[in-house]
Each structure stands twice: as C-alpha cells, then as structure tokens.
C-alpha cells in the first residue's frame, strides 16, 4: 500500500515550478516592454485569456456551442458601469463589485441554460445567438424612457478600480490587476479540469449518453458549465469596464465572439495552455497588423479555414507543453505474459481491490422485471418480459440478432423509459429513472459498440465512473478543501483498484494513455473496469468478448467468473459465443422477438427446440 505517497503529491494542481515561472514572466513583462502601448497589449492579452478560458469551460470542457457568450461579458461590464459610476451615483467598492458582476452574469447563464435545456446542438447555438442579440438590442435601447444603459452613448466615466485605499490608474497598474484576475482564472480552470467536474464535462463532451450511463448528471453539468463560463465572462467584463473607464454597446458584439472562438479553436478545444497561447498570439497579431486595415481580417479568415483543414485539433491540440516520451502499444509480449496468468491481478500493483466473497444467493432477488414491454413504432422490441435475477448470479441472455437483448439493457439502465411494466432493483422501483440515477442505485453497464470517452486517458475513464459517488462542489474544488482532496484520493484509488484487476493491461504507463490508442480487446476491458469503478453491484455486460480472439475470450470468461467469486458482483451478460455462455452462466434465458422463449441451465436452454429454431430459423411450413 503506497497511499502515503499519494498524499504528498499535489493532485492535479499546477506544479509549483510552473507557477513560479509564470508569475515571474507576468511580473517582468512591464519591465521589458518598450512602452505603455505594449504593456496595454499584454494586459489585453490577460483579458482575452480570461474570456477564452471562460468559454473553454462551456464550449471546450462541456462541448456546448454557446454563441451567446459575449452577452455575459456585456452583462458583467454594464453591471460594473451601473454600480461604479456617477450614472446612478452608486460607487460600490471594486472588490465587492467584481463578484457581483460575476454572479449577475452567472445568474443569466443559468437562466439561459435552463430555458435552452430542451434544445441541443445547433439549436442551442441559435437560441444562445438569439439571446445575445436580445441583450445587445436591450443595451442599445434601454436609455429611454428611463436611462439604464446609456443607449448608444454607453456609460462613460466609470470609477477606477479602488482596493483598500489604493487606486489603479496607470496602464502598468491595470496590467497587474488584469493579470491577477487572469491568473486566478487560469488556476481555477486548471483545478476545475482536474476534478470530478472537469472529468464529468469531458465525458459529456465525448459521449453524452455514455456519460449519463456512467452516472454523470448531464443536465446539471451543462447548466453548471453555462453558469461558470458566464461568471468568468462577467468578471472579465467588470475588469474590462473599469480599465476602459466606460462601456459602449459595440464593445460586446459578434466580432468579439468570433475572436474568442478563434482563440479557443486555435488553441485546441479544452486545452488550457493551448488556449492561453492562442489568446496571446491573437491579441498581439492584430496589433501588429493594425496599419493594414481590411487585409488583416482576410488573413485572419484564411488562417481559420486553412488551420481547420490542416490542424483541426488546434495549434497545441495534441502537443503538451512538456515533451513526453512516446510509448507505443506493445501488445504482443504482454498478451503472452497475461495469458499465462490465471487471473490478471497478480498483486504487484499499488492498489488491490479488497476482496468480498460472493456466491449465488437464491434467497435474495436483486433485480426483478415485471411484464416489461417496449414498443418502437408498433414493433414489440421487448414483449411482456418478466425475470428475476438473484444476488451473486451470472445470468446470460442469448438470442439471435434483433431479439431485443440490448433493448432490455437500455430499459434497465434507464436509457429508454419502458412502454409498460416495472423494473425493481434491490426492492425499490427504478422504472423511468434517468440513467445517472440508475447508476447511483447500483446498476452499471457496458456497451456493445464500445462507448469509451476516447480522448480521455485510461485512468480518467475509470475516474469518471466515480462521479455519482462523490459530491465535491465548485467551492471545495476551487479552494481545494480537505473534503475534495480526500474524495479525489478516493476516486483515484477506486479507479486504480479496478484497473488493477486487469494487471499490466490497464495499469502502469497505460494510466496516461488515451483510450483511443488502446487495442480493441483492451478497450473492452476498460469498459468493464469503468463499469466496475461505479461501485455498482449489478453489472450488465453487452457482448464482453466481442472482437476478442479465442485466448482473450477465455481470459475474459474466467475473469468475469472470478469477479463474482471474489468480489460478489451480480452479472447479466449478453453473449453470442455460446461456449462463453456455457462456462460462465448460472442460468440462461433466451429471447426471440422480445419474448422469453426459454429459461434454465445452459444445457436446458441450448437443447430447447425453440432456441434451436430461433437460431437456425424455422423450417418452411412449420410456423
């Protein structure tokens, strides 16, 4: 047990050396810049970093196409203008106003998210764009009959930032103020990304359905992303307004939105350092070209088109700041080695899953289906299916293609609400619950067509699974409270324990490997590990051995049995390879046309005349 070493590490925080380096650069910049103009450009870069990292939360982490982002920037700016100027003669202190602006924008973000939840994808884009247009028009027109926004005149003569008796006036002073906030946002982004929330968003972006099925409350996470992105934009708006000393309607237009998106895409969506670099480049580049008028815009546009075609992942998309030694997938020797092991986990790993003996317990029904029916457009995919699964049992479902097996899984895990019937898990009804709620109750699954979070690492994939077992909120993540650190430690431990079950296949250097780079068989294994890492008791495996060669198939078969024997899981398995079914199952049911046509031991079912017919087909004239 090497838990103590984990405690010393800073889990997912910016390494101290990097932090010192960044601070040093930030402090030194005003000293090496030739004049105030360049200091201002540097300060502007800081603002753009804030803005693009805020958008990175919404569009980068969570993958939501939010075209109303500048509206929040505007709301922040105008809130500052109203609360810190002679306009209404309110002069609140700076340290109070910035959070108010962030909150105001955030509230609007939640509101927008809440109303647009029903629409997704491109429709979300248009609703948010519509929202931004409405905000823009209101800012332009709410100057009469009561003057709120100053209309086209905007609100000039705002207060300087004023903190505890110190007033920020010069460019250099403001540069430091902006950089302070930019660093805060960088730190917050970094911490968010490496937390359960960050992983949840990334999972959501990679595969919404799989994220839901692994216990991520996708609705809530989307709202949260909207809210956080908006609050960062709001804060940036406040700082911006204070520096410019005024706000004007065209400070917050479509062109600003395009610029922020360019930074995001250029930097590589979701990649914090890439986005920062892109923000810096794109805030300096136009300045260098300022004397060339329209040509700079043409260059800008061409750059976008060419870059999208040549480097769709952004300039820093696949490159990490620190060069990594490349490790290739060396499947062959390991396959041989692992095949020798009877059981993957040889105990040589840091984290060993604690044993918990399990066996078939016929007295306890873990899952019960009652008259479950699912109708798709008149077709009975599942037809009045009733079924009991006992604790510690391995139940296999067989049947030809289109017999409704996967639909049964989709019904149990809440992906479809059934047309009629009941699903009872551990004595409680779970019919109609959302997938993430079903996982919370203790039912996890794998998918027939592998739905891993392909651009996340092996370890992160397994860590996502702990999402519904952890509670750390925004506050404890941002301030790294002990509760969060403890939880994070637990998440990592659980993930590693479950990956450790597969031995070297999924541990060691593979922790950091992206799921997409794994071999097919390893991807199957990772899906199982991920399902196990949800701490569920009932695991639904959809063709766990598909795409595996005979040796690997034998391995996985024993592995599943071992899991039951040593850890007490209950399994329902859909499987086509009947020798797998034979060796593994306590009980087998056969489906055809959504109906249960046989139930019993493997031999009973395999010899059943209806089953043979279902597979081989009825002979002509014998309906």
């Amino acid at each position, binding site marked *: 047990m090497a838990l103590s070493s984990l405690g010393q590490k800073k889990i997912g925080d910016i390494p101290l050396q990097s932090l010192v380096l960044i601070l040093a650069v930030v402090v030194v910049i005003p000293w090496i810049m030739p004049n105030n103009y360049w200091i201002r450009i540097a300060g502007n870069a800081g603002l753009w970093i804030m803005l693009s990292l805020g958008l990175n939360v919404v569009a980068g982490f969570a993958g939501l196409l939010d075209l109303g982002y500048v509206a929040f920037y505007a709301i922040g700016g105008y809130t500052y203008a109203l609360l810190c100027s002679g306009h209404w003669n309110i002069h609140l202190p700076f340290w109070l106003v910035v959070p108010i602006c962030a909150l105001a924008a955030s509230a609007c973000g939640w509101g927008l998210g809440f109303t647009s939840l029903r629409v997704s994808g491109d429709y979300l884009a248009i609703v948010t764009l519509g929202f931004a247009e409405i905000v823009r028009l209101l800012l332009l027109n709410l100057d009469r009959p009561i003057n709120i926004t100053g209309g086209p005149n905007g609100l*000039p003569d705002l207060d300087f930032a004023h903190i505890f008796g110190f007033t920020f006036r010069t460019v250099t002073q403001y540069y430091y103020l902006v950089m302070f906030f930019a660093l805060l946002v960088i730190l917050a982004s970094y911490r968010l990304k490496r937390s359960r929330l960050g992983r949840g968003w990334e999972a959501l972006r990679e595969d919404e359905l799989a994220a839901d099925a692994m216990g991520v409350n996708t609705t809530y996470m989307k709202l949260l992303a909207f809210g956080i992105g908006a609050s960062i934009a709001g804060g940036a708006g406040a700082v911006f307004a204070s520096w*410019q000393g005024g706000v004007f309607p*065209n*400070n917050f237009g479509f062109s600003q939105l395009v610029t922020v998106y360019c930074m995001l895409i250029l930097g590589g969506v979701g990649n914090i350092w890439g986005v920062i670099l892109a923000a810096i480049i794109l805030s300096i580049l136009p300045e260098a070209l300022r004397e060339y008028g329209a040509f700079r815009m043409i260059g800008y546009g061409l750059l976008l088109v060419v870059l999208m075609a040549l480097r769709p992942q952004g300039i820093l998309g696949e490159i990490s700041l620190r060069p990594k030694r490349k490790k290739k997938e060396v499947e062959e020797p390991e396959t041989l080695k692992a095949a020798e092991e009877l059981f993957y986990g040889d105990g040589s790993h840091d984290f060993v899953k604690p044993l918990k003996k399990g066996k078939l317990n016929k007295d306890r029904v873990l899952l019960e289906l009652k008259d479950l029916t699912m109708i798709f457009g008149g077709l009975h995919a599942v037809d009045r299916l009733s079924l009991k699964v006992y604790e510690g049992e391995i139940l296999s479902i067989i049947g030809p293609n289109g017999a409704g097996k996967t639909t049964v899984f989709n019904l149990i895990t809440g992906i479809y609400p059934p047309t009629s019937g009941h699903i009872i898990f551990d004595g409680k009804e779970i019919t109609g619950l959302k997938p993430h709620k079903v996982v919370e109750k203790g039912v996890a699954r794998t998918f027939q067509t592998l739905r891993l979070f392909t651009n996340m690492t092996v370890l992160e994939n397994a860590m996502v699974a702990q999402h519904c077992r952890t509670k750390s909120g925004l506050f404890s993540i941002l301030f790294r409270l002990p509760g969060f650190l403890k939880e994070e430690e637990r998440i990592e431990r659980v993930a590693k324990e479950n990956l450790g079950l597969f031995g070297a296949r999924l541990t060691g250097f593979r922790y950091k490997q992206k799921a997409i780079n794994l071999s097919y068989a390893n991807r199957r294994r990772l899906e199982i590990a991920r399902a196990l890492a949800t701490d569920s008791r009932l695991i639904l495996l959809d063709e766990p051995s598909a795409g595996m060669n005979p040796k690997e198939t034998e391995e996985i078969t024993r592995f599943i049995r071992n899991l039951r024997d040593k850890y007490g899981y209950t399994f329902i398995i859909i499987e086509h390879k009947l020798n797998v079914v034979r060796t593994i199952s306590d009980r087998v049911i056969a489906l055809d046309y959504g109906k249960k046509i046989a139930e019993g031991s493997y031999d009973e079912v395999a010899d059943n005349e209806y089953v043979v017919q279902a597979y081989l087909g009825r002979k002509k004239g014998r309906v």
Partner: protein
Amino acid sequence: MKKVLLLGLSVCLIIAFSTINGYAADVSKGLSIGAAGPFTGPAAAPGMEIFNSIKIAVDEKNAAGGIKGVKVKLVMGDDAGDAAQGVNVAEKFCADKTMYGVIGPPMSNVAEATLRMYAQCNLTCITTAASRPDLTEKGYHHFFRVNARDDAHGPAVGHFIAEDLKAKSVYVLNTKDTYSQGYADQVVATLKKLGVKKIWRDTIVASAKDYSSVLTRVKAKNPDVLVVGAKTAPDHAVMVRQMRELGIKAIYFGSEGAKDKKDFIQASEGAAEGAYLNHFAPDIYKIPEAAHYVKVYESKYGSLSGFGPPAYDATNILLNAMEKAAADGDITRKEVMKYMAQTKNYRGILGFPITFDKKGDLLGGATYIFKVVGGDFKLVKVAKGM
C-alpha cells in the same frame, strides 16, 4: 519559496507604479501624425473618406517640403468603431515618440473612451465628426473639433421647422447612435418649447435598407414634417425614397449626413426633391478654395460625402500648429497643443473661418439649412448664434 516570491512581486509592483511621462525631441528624429478611426467594420465607409482626406493633406504638405524639411508620416490606427480597440490605438499613438497629433477619433464613444488617455500623454486630438457635447465639457485641453456639436444644430433645426415651415405635427426618427440620438433629442426639445403639440418619436436601425414598416406607422400619423436623424447619406436616401413610395406627403428634413449630392439626391432618384437638411458648412462644391481638394479626392477615391472636407481642414490645422511648434527645430507635444489652441480664423476649404473656443469647440459656427431644388442643394437659411 513563497515568501521570496511575494517579496519580489511587491518590489516590482512598487517600482512599476512610478512611471514617467513626457517627450521633447529634435524635429529631425521624425514627425508623424495619427489617424484614428473606423477603417474596417460597419462604419468603414465614412472612416475611409476621412482617412483619404487626411492623406491628401499630408501628401500635399510633404510634396511642399514637409515641416522643416522633414516629411510627415501618417500612421493608420484602425479601431473598427470599437472603443476597446480605440483604447489600444490611443496607447499606441501615445507611445510613439515621433507622434505629435491625432486626427480623430470620429466616433463619439471611441473619443469618449480615449479622452483620458490622450490627455495623459498630451497628444493633441482633432475630431472631425465626434459630436457629443460633453466631450469638450470635461476640462481637457488637448481635444478640439472642427465639426459642430449635437446641441449646435438641433435648436436651429427646431426653430426652422416650427417657425419657417410652420409645422403643426412632426414625426422624429433617429438611428441608434450617439450623434443621431442627440440631434433628435435637441430637435424634439426645441419643438416642444416652441409649442408644437403633436410630436412622435421612434428609432430605426442604421443601414437596415428597409424602413417601410416604420414608415407605414408614420403614414398613419400623417405628420407635416418627418425629421430623420441618421449619420450617412444612403440611410437618408432609402428613407426618403421609401417614404415617397408609400405616398407620405410630409416634408422631409434630414440631418447633416444627408448633404451628399451623389449618395442622397442622385441615389434617391428624384424622391429627395423638396427635402430640407441642415449642415455645419456651406456647400463644398460652391466654395472656390475647395475646388482643388474636391478634384483630387474625386479623381483618386471616387465620390465625396460630407466627412472628407473637415478632415482635410483638420489635418492642415494640425500641420500648421506642428510647423509653428517646430519653428525652433525642437518640438514637443505641449507646444503643438498650445499652437492648436491659438488657431484663429483659419480659412480652409469649409467656407467659414475656424477659431477654437476655450473648450476646443468651433467658435462662431452657423447652421446652414439647404433645400433640394432641381437636383441640387440650395441654401435657404443661415442660422447663427447658437
């Protein structure tokens, strides 16, 4: 480790906050002037007319030998009409040690946002279009304008409509920008003061090209006069055209921007006949001094609207001030500012003498009211003493 860091940071901050300012230099180190304005983006059309006119003035000066033999360099500072970019431009111009004056910014909100910064670095600004009254009310000494303020023409126009046109009912439309809104406010206030009872107001979207739905509303009110505050001549052209098409009989009264023979009278293909408009200067085509400029401009850049001539004059005024400041071979920004303020009865191409008052505003300007007659502008009234 952390303590060292904090210490270092605070030392840096203390030093950083004590910055020094002010330049004085030999003329031979270079002379440049800046052009700040929207040279891309939605307001690029008037912006480029301003820039081209500045360029003509600078080129003429350089062709004549420059200032003390030094050629004046013109630097473009495109702000795309966005105050946030305007602030960058200002910082850039301030930091340019060879720069002694700026023409612009022509948009009020950009001017507003950069006022403080140009003042801090003593850089003279002459705007040629920013008309918000309060720009010159804040006590800065570096800011001048050759155009009139919003509150200059509104009252005169109001009086003309109420007294000369004897209107009983007036519909006032304006686009949502600083200039047009201020103009419309002033007109409405004056009309109210003069006892016109029936006044309606509405706003329109600039360069929307279709005003027929709002004009349908105007038609239902059947006003005597329709006053339109809009910055550019094409907007006026569309408006007057669609108004006549809908059969609205009201007299059309357009704001300053309408004074453009090609883009208003010709573009409206006859619909503008009989329309009134106000302008801060007499007709440029009728001023002998302007003939050369008009010829050069139209041969190089095509047709001219109202934004070019003031920019040409402003540039020449600035260059004159710089020449005076550089007379001793040495030039500072403060000197330029001083000589600018002393500008008196400068006779350029605008047809009236330019003198700045203490605030930097144009002194003794007048409102020239024109009527479109036979496809040309005819001066009908000169209202002085605003």
